[in-house]
């Protein structure tokens, strides 16, 4: 049912079993690209499944063989780090809809052998975790030690434990929400409009037209990048500093360092990310509403699990603010679940979970290591 191959440094699991998606369509024979770190012990009780955020991928730590940059969670994951790969077996897979090897809009539609583009089915967070569940079967893991992720990764954490309540001992949603807010849908829509307004998008068929909607995707990334930072963080890092010039140029070049920084962030993003994947994954986030899945009672999402939860938010995160994380804590407390919560002081905005924030990394490490001893 599952076969594995490695091509261009990307390990891929081919899932033969059909997966019925929330949109009504069914996919089968589809690839899930994944990576692992550390060793699975003989009892198979040291596995941690990590879920990546919107623009992440399976390359959590070490050198990303495709981008040649550090993995997206290198501060938190690795030998001796908070998620210690000397101790734990870490698995992460690229979400379906993504562009790092998992089934997505740049793949060919088996029905007509044409690149999907926007004919790829619209996927949800629920579909994403149901697809990833196949990894447990592949590795023969009956129960994970932990599941962890920030931002959209946190949404997958919540959906996973709701779908598979006895498949993880501990659960770590970070800087996330149980229901995507109007503000966040609005911000995602801004990004999607930037992409589809690019004349090179060509109704999603840019690959077969040898084009790239790079301008649109870069603008989407620039706008999103601002939301990952905080006002204070931006002010401290950039202020009104000028970019390699003595004075204002009275034009529309990047006079300010912040402009130059954003343009750079946009341009490097285009090299590694697919525009249609950006549309699909932001849509999955917008559709995420775990409360609605349980008819308005979020507690019901967790009523069948005995897992130990640890929820973390950051003071300067205005994208997934503390209150939205606390709503999850409240839902868990109201059913007597085992839940801990901490808000970490940080000026680094939503991106805090990806950065070197010692209070966060210490809390994560202590929670995992102490829970593992009690295991």
């Amino acid at each position, binding site marked *: 049912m599952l076969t594995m191959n490695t091509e261009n440094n990307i390990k891929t699991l081919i899932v033969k079993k059909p997966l019925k998606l929330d949109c009504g369509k069914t996919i089968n024979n589809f690839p899930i690209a994944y990576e692992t770190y550390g060793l699975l012990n003989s009892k198979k009780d040291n596995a941690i499944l990590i879920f990546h955020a919107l623009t992440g991928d399976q390359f959590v730590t070490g050198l990303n063989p495709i981008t040649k940059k550090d993995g997206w969670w290198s501060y938190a994951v690795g030998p001796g780090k908070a998620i210690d790969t000397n101790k734990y077996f870490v698995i992460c897979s690229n979400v379906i809809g993504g562009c790092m090897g998992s089934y997505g809009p740049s793949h060919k539609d088996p029905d007509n052998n044409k690149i999907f583009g926007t004919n790829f089915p619209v996927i949800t967070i629920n579909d994403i975790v149901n697809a990833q569940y196949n990894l447990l079967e592949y590795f023969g893991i009956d129960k994970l030690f932990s599941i962890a992720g920030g931002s959209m990764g946190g949404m997958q954490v919540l959906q996973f434990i709701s779908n598979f309540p006895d498949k993880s001992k501990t659960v770590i949603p970070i800087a996330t929400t149980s229901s995507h807010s109007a503000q966040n849908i609005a911000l995602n829509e801004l990004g999607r409009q930037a992409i589809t307004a690019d004349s090179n998008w060509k109704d999603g068929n840019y690959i077969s037209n040898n084009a790239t909607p790079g301008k649109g995707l870069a603008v989407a990334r620039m706008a999103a990048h601002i939301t990952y930072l905080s006002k204070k963080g931006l002010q401290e890092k950039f202020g009104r500093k000028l970019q390699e010039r003595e004075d204002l140029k009275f034009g529309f070049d990047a006079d300010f360092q912040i402009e130059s920084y954003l343009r750079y962030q946009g341009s490097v993003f285009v090299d590694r990310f697919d525009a249609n994947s950006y549309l699909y994954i932001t849509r999955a986030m917008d559709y995420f509403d775990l409360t609605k899945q349980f008819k308005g009672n979020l507690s019901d999402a967790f009523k069948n699990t005995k897992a130990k939860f640890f929820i973390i938010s950051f003071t300067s995160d205005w994208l997934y603010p503390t209150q939205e994380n606390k709503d999850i804590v409240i839902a868990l407390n109201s059913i007597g679940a085992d839940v801990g919560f901490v808000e970490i002081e940080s000026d680094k905005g939503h991106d805090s979970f990806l950065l070197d924030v010692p209070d966060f990394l*210490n*809390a994560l490490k202590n929670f995992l290591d102490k829970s593992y001893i009690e295991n």
Partner: protein
Amino acid sequence: MKNEFKVIAELIEKNKKVLDVGCADGTLMKFLKENKNINIRGLEISKSKVQECIAKGLTVIEGNAEKDLKQFPDKSFDYVVLSQTLQAFLNPELVLSELLRVGKKAIVTIPNFGYWKVRFHLLFKGTMPVTKALPDEWYNTPNLHMCTLKDFVYFVRSRNIKIFKSLALNNLDTSIINENNLGIKNLFADLGIFLIEK
């Protein structure tokens, strides 16, 4: 571990579910978890104290008792513990009623403002009392609503709260407070421990 915590721990039977409100660095929680197999949760406002609890492997929620107790269902804990914090709340009456809603029973400890050293300090020095149990100056104390043991007993009675056990602590001495000795204990105890229920 301080005597107060030992006395609190003796009031709690094994294998119960307990919420420690204002759990600080988790000393009492750790003791209850390890020695009495207590299913223990903490609520703590200080970020650094929350970190200390996490480092001890304790389940703690960062939060404010005046706002965050309402998320817990009625009688969801066998005991709720509040150690020397009631006087620091803006609205102690509300917090007390929340403790008794969330817990089947509550254990509340009170630094006694009626303690003779406190009285002497004010009487002879004429300045706000500073003692071992009340170490802060008037301008930086977190304590907003100081009371004596007598005040507390009168208050809970007026709210029809049942007192199961009242204990007076003076350093390492622990004694039972009853109807007849309340006046004396109110003079000689620096701390009162009350097991109550509504």
